[in-house]
């Protein structure tokens, strides 16, 4: 594990820095707010997402690169670790129970997988019927999987991860969107346990205070597998 320091500030938060240097990455790309990104990550490779400006929601889905019907499952992931928050040590579990990736470093400390992605339709419900025209994550997801081909479609857009989002559940069963706990430069890093296809929508949401109504770019980096 390419980790150097560990600081635990609360039970479900596992702050771990990575020893990998961006200068050694084999791939670097900045995803602008509102843009999708789709890319294969090979088994053993390391994949980092950097919240360049802080409190940006990075809506993310993963698929088994050899069988897209075997894909990230929010419920299987939280059920297996018996905790709703994702942080260092979390295995991202697929619908067949396969570990797709493991989070190996996390300087933010908590990521959401219950809040899902925004859509034209859910924006109409949540904010106002007039919001339909506004750009939304699930439009980015659909555009991306349509261009990717391989028979991918809306059936493959399932419940995603929101990296850098803070969506607590209370003991009374309330779900709340809290102010972000991320800051500029915070990152989360994963090791691919099998070949995966990653799909990101860098969230364009303008109606939610969670990103201070200001969606911003994020960077993705990939490093080769380490022996």
């Amino acid at each position, binding site marked *: 594990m390419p980790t150097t320091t560990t600081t635990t500030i609360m039970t479900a938060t596992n702050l771990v820095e990575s020893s990998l240097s961006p200068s050694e990455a084999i791939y670097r790309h900045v995803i602008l707010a509102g843009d999708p990104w789709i890319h294969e990550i090979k088994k053993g490779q390391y994949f980092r997402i950097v919240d360049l400006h802080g409190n940006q929601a990075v809506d993310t889905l993963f698929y088994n690169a050899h069988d897209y019907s075997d894909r990230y499952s929010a*419920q299987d992931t939280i*059920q297996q670790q018996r905790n709703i928050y994702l942080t260092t040590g979390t295995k991202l579990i697929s619908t067949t129970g396969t570990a797709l990736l493991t989070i190996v470093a996390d300087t933010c400390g908590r990521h959401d997988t*219950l809040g899902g992605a925004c859509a034209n339709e859910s924006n109409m419900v949540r904010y*106002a019927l007039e919001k339909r025209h506004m750009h939304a994550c699930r439009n980015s997801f659909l555009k991306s999987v349509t261009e990717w081909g391989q028979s991918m479609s809306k059936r493959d857009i399932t*419940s995603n991860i929101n990296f850098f989002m803070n969506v607590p559940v209370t003991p009374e069963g309330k779900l709340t969107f809290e102010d972000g706990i991320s800051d500029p430069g915070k990152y989360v890093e994963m090791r691919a346990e099998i070949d995966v296809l990653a799909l990101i929508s860098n969230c364009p949401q303008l109606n939610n205070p969670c990103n201070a109504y200001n969606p911003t770019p994020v960077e993705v980096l990939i490093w080769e597998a380490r022996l």
Partner: protein
Amino acid sequence: MYMSEMPILWEETIQPGATWSHVLKRGTALRVVDPEGGANAAAIFYNFECPVERYNMPDTLKAQQIARLTTGFVLYSDMGRILCSVTADTVGWHDPIGGTSNASLINAKYGPSTYQESRNNNHKNGRDSFLVELGKWGLGSRDLVANVNLFSRVDVAEDGGMSFVPGNSKAGDSVELRAEMNVLAILNTCPHPLDPNPKYQPKPVQVSIRRVPPPAAEDPCRVSRPENGRGFTLTERYFL
């Protein structure tokens, strides 16, 4: 008229560890009863006319800011429409986050089991049960999305830890789901994946269907919050 006063069109028992599906017609309601207490009815819902529109856990949770289901809440599709409303509930908490079991979990928890040896008492798991029942409608693994677990409760602690609450549902408890669209309901009665019971002891549930009036302007699910008012508007537009 309250649903309980409407005549039952038909009813049946879903045996322990069994699968079930039905197209709930708009204008009817499904009552599910836990006759013994401690049941778990795992369910996913689809727009029967276009099943690529299906129950969406995050949209349901965030529109209503909930991590539990009870009277007054609704189940949203991914298209901003309401598939079902919870019009009555004696339990108070149904789990929308815990998910379902798979074969390896059931095998690890309860030991190996074959039909050859155990006949219809062999151990069933939630994932395979969903897939079998989905297959009958031409659907498959790409259609298997996050499910709800009727009668079960999962608490979330401050640190995010999830714990199953035993004894959440008592003998005779029931929940009523009013279909706001023509809804393909896929159910099974496999044990909840977080149920700590070391023995494989799934419970039966009874289901009954009634015809019910359309949701009125002051319907409790419609007025419970402005989001649901807009959800009903979008659902009603679909049928215009």
